[in-house]
Each structure stands twice: as structure tokens, then as C-alpha cells.
């Protein structure tokens, strides 16, 4: 074992640094949470104080519940995020498998073409995307968002996953072929479970930008019934008056689902890492 790891001074310094970083990272969330439970006046008088009997107020949450159909926004965000992640992972993994496993003409060029999207921000094409959505009649549907986010996530997914799939043992795939498994079974039953840590990484990378995105919901699906949570919260932010209670309450509630998704994926990440180490 490394000697430095047992030196108590080093341990304190290391943990100190980590704890400090954790505090810095969690502080804004903490401020949002405590202030969402305070009255408007208390928020501005003492932004860092904990809510007490005087300043405690649920007004923010009440406004959020009354204003618009908040659960619908919630549901929309959830559907868009989960569906996009599903398609990104499914198609990304399939493309990555084809690129890494099969030799065909233009394999390398195809790989580069698919990776090109990493370097070009999808928002540059917003006008064209909008025109396309209008032409296909997809404006103001959740499908418009799902398709765009899938396209946005695919390049990185293909890039990361194909690298991981190259490392899956050829012998294992060949053993499957000799045992009479179809190429699809080999892909879904043998290869996918082995690249699960990489899949979790891709999922986490893609999830947060999709959940937080304001741009595409605003442009492609601003209708009441397709609003996402981020877009829905914007009604409380006005040019002259902002309902801070409501904004903070909405944000507090918006954190929860991503947190849950993140916990699910990160457990996969850790499980993947340890199962590899034990082998």
C-alpha cells in the first residue's frame, strides 16, 4: 500500500479538500432549498438564514401548484428525457457495435462522420430544424424534442461506446456464434451487459443538458400541453417582476427527478467498475 495514504496529515488535507469542494458544490442548492420555504420578504432580508416560525412560508409551492399544470410539465420533462436517453443509448450502441465489430467499406469514414456531430453544436441548425418540424407537422409535440435530443446525443454516444466495444473479447462473441446465438442476441445479451459502465456514463452526460434545456422547448414545443419543467418555470420570471418564491420552489422540485435518475445510473457505473475489478 501507498505510504502517503496512511499519513494522518495527508488524510486530513485530502478529506479537507474534498469536503470543501462538496460544500462549494452543494451551497447553491442549499440556498435554493431553504429560500423556497421562506416568505418573499424573508428571502431578501436574510437570504442565508434558515426558515423559522416567522419566515416559514409555503407560498412559493402554492403558487407553483396553482399556476399552470405543473405536473404535466413535470411529466413532459420526464418523458422527453427518458425517451431521448433510451434512443441515444439504443441507436448509439447499435451504431457503435456495427462500427467496431464488422468490417465494411467506408467503416472509418462512417465512424468519423458520426463523430463529427461532437464538434458542431446542434443549435446552429435551429432554423433548419424548426422548418423541418413545421414541414413534418411535429411542432408542439414531444416527439420534436425527443428527435432533436436523440440527434444531439448520438455522436458522443457512438464515439464513446465504439471505443468500449472494441475491448469486448472477440472470443466471447465467437463462442456465441458457435453456440448458435444470432448477431442480435450476441449484441443484446453478451456485449451490452459488458459495456454497461460506458452506457451509464453516456446516459449521465446526456441526461442533465436535456433536462435543463430551455432553447429547444421554447422554439419547438412552447404550447401549454408540451411545456417542459424548465420552460414552465419561466412564467415566474418576468422582465420587471420575478416571483422568487415560485421560481425557487419550482427549481427545488425540478432537482428531485434528475437526482433519482442520476443515482440509478451512477450505481450502474460503480457496479460496472467493481465487477471488472473482481474478474
Amino acid at each position, binding site marked *: 500500500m501507498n505510504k502517503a495514504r496512511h499519513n494522518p496529515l495527508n488524510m486530513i488535507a485530502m478529506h479537507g479538500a474534498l469536503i470543501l469542494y462538496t460544500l462549494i458544490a452543494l451551497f447553491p442548492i442549499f440556498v435554493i432549498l431553504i429560500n423556497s420555504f421562506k416568505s418573499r420578504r424573508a428571502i431578501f432580508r436574510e437570504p442565508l438564514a434558515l426558515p423559522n416560525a416567522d419566515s416559514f412560508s409555503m407560498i412559493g409551492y402554492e403558487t407553483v401548484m396553482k399556476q399552470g399544470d405543473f405536473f404535466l410539465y413535470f411529466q413532459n420533462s420526464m418523458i422527453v428525457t427518458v425517451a431521448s436517453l433510451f434512443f441515444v443509448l439504443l441507436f448509439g450502441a447499435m451504431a457503435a457495435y456495427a462500427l467496431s465489430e464488422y468490417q465494411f467499406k467506408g467503416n472509418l469514414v462512417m465512424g468519423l462522420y458520426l463523430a463529427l456531430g461532437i464538434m458542431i453544436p446542434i443549435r446552429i441548425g435551429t432554423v433548419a430544424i424548426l422548418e423541418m418540424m413545421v414541414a413534418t407537422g411535429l411542432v408542439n409535440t414531444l416527439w420534436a424534442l425527443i428527435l432533436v435530443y436523440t440527434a444531439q446525443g448520438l455522436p458522443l454516444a457512438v464515439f464513446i461506446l465504439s471505443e468500449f466495444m472494441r475491448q469486448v*473479447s472477440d*472470443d*466471447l462473441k*465467437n*463462442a*456465441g*456464434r*458457435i*453456440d*448458435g*446465438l444470432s448477431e442480435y442476441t450476441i449484441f443484446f*445479451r*453478451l456485449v451490452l*451487459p*459488458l459495456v454497461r459502465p460506458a452506457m451509464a456514463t453516456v446516459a449521465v452526460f446526456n441526461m442533465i443538458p436535456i433536462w435543463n434545456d430551455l432553447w429547444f422547448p421554447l422554439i419547438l414545443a412552447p404550447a401549454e400541453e408540451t411545456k417542459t419543467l424548465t420552460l414552465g418555470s419561466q412564467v415566474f420570471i418576468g422582465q420587471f417582476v420575478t416571483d422568487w418564491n415560485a421560481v425557487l420552489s419550482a427549481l427545488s422540485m425540478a432537482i428531485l427527478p434528475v437526482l433519482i435518475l442520476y443515482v440509478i445510473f451512477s450505481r450502474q457505473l460503480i457496479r460496472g467498475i467493481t*465487477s471488472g475489478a*473482481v*474478474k
Partner: protein
Amino acid sequence: MTALTLKNVNKSFGNVHVLKDITLEVEEGEFVVFVGPSGCGKSTLLRVIAGLEDASSGDINIGGQQVNLVPPSKRGIAMVFQSYALYPHLSVRGNMTLALKQEKQPKSVIEERVANASRMLNLEPYLDRYPSELSGGQRQRVAIGRAIVREPKLFLFDEPLSNLDAALRMNTRIEIANLHRALDASMIYVTHDQTEAMTLADKIVVLRDGRVEQIGSPMELYNNPANQFVAGFLGSPSMNFLPEALLQESGQNTIGIRPEDLFLSDDGPLAARVSHVEKLGGDTNVIAKVQDHDVTARLFGQHAIAEGQELRFGYASEKAYRFDEAGQRLT
């Protein structure tokens, strides 16, 4: 009936010609070993037989049926891989039954075959474990068990012992030989280790650069090698090759003498200076320099020989092999 017939099999990857005109037969129940240095194409040949690679040209017959276009699972073969290639998400039982389930065998047949195979390989206590919970030797046995339950016409082994440590390798080698006797099945075994080839094979196929150098029983190849390559590849320590001039004979040919055919002799023709001695107890290997050629002599028993000592070796002329400049055997 022949278990496998290859006729003029060629394989190229792009411009690289990997297998050149391979023609050979494997009889029913025969244990055939493909042996050769790394990169000689032996594994590729095995993969062509298995159907994991397509032959560029030539005929492949398994059990009298042409299989060039038959997918691997329908060829009646089973393969054991160097890295075991066990399915990590299935238990030992699951690993062994997967192929049978794919073939839609009835449950009773599956259970019986798994019971037989696990008894044969002493795997009964481990049937419900996962590959990650097994040791290397146990994993190897599961891989072999997975092949046995399919009752194939032909077993293919791709360097199955190279991931095991030396002691386990010897045990597993004996187990595989016993298995061959018990199953009486045709087996093809690929290795680069000439000891494995000599000890296991009914018939050895020596490959070099994608070409068959010689086919024959181990002793045939040992006693009667067709060329310098086969002579040098089989036998351990390997044969000494010396120019005729060095042995006070006229000519440009090369003389090959096995290390065990050299003996100490005060008036022998080879004057040598000892550069290294390996004392193995039963044998003593003497590595010595004759002018600038290395010579290895294997002396029976224990000898008090030290580095730097001057020795003379003799050999019986009838036990020497002669090769021409192209490496072909003369006498």
C-alpha cells in the same frame, strides 16, 4: 469416414496471404495438433474450420458434408477458446446449456448431458456458480464442458492451456488426453508449444508461414523430419545446426544433431567452450560455443561441468541429419 477434409484451402486478408493451399485429413477419433510459431496461421486455420472466417478458396468437409457456406453453429463443431470466453452473466450450468437450448433439445436430454459432462470434469459442486467465482483451471474445465455437452463431430481447441500456470497446464494436458480416450471423438488442437503437441497428438501438422511443412505422428516427425524447420521446431532442447565445415567434413550443407545425441569424448570432433550449464538433476544441459556457434548438449545424469571449461563432444554419424542450403533434408 473422415471427420474433416481440407482441400486446397486458401485465406487472404486483403493482400496478405495467410493460408496457402492447405490440404489435410482428420480421421474419425483422431487427435490432431496444429503446431507452429506465432503468426504461422494455425489459429486462422482453426477459425476457418469453425466457420468464424470464410476461406478465400478451397473445400472444407466435416463428416463428409461440405460446410463452406454453413454457419458455425450448424457445422457440428464445438470450440474451446484460449481466453475461455465464458458468458459472464450465466452460471456454469447456464454456460453449458445455452447451445443446447438454442438447438431446442428436450429438457431431459439437456439435463443428462450436463450431468455426464460435469461428472467427467468434476464440475458438479460448481454448477450454480458464476464464472467470476471460479479459478482459472475451473473456468477452463467449464469451457471444455460447454464443448462436450454439444456432442460435436469435431472438437476445436485454440491454445486452451496457454493461460494456465505450469503445474496446472500439465494436469489439464493429461485431463484432455483422458477426455479424448473417454469420448473417442475427433479433436483438433492448436498450440505453439511443441511439448503439448508431442504428448497429445496422434498426428501433428507443422505449419510455417501459412503452409503445411509436414504431417505425421509425433515420433515420425521427430525421427524423420522433412526439413530443417521441422527438425528444429520439435524436440526440447532443440536440434543443433552446424555447417559441415565445422565438423571437418567437406561440403556446404548443414548438419543437425539432437542435443541428446552429443556425448563427451576426448577425441571428439567438436571442441567447445562451456558458456552455461543447466543442472536439472536427471539431466544436465550444457550450452557451449563451438567457434561462434552455440551448441546444446543434453547429458544424462549429473556432471561436474563449470562455465568456461573446454570440452570435446562426439556424435554418432548415423544419428546426424543433413540439410541442403534451402533447409531440405538430404539424409
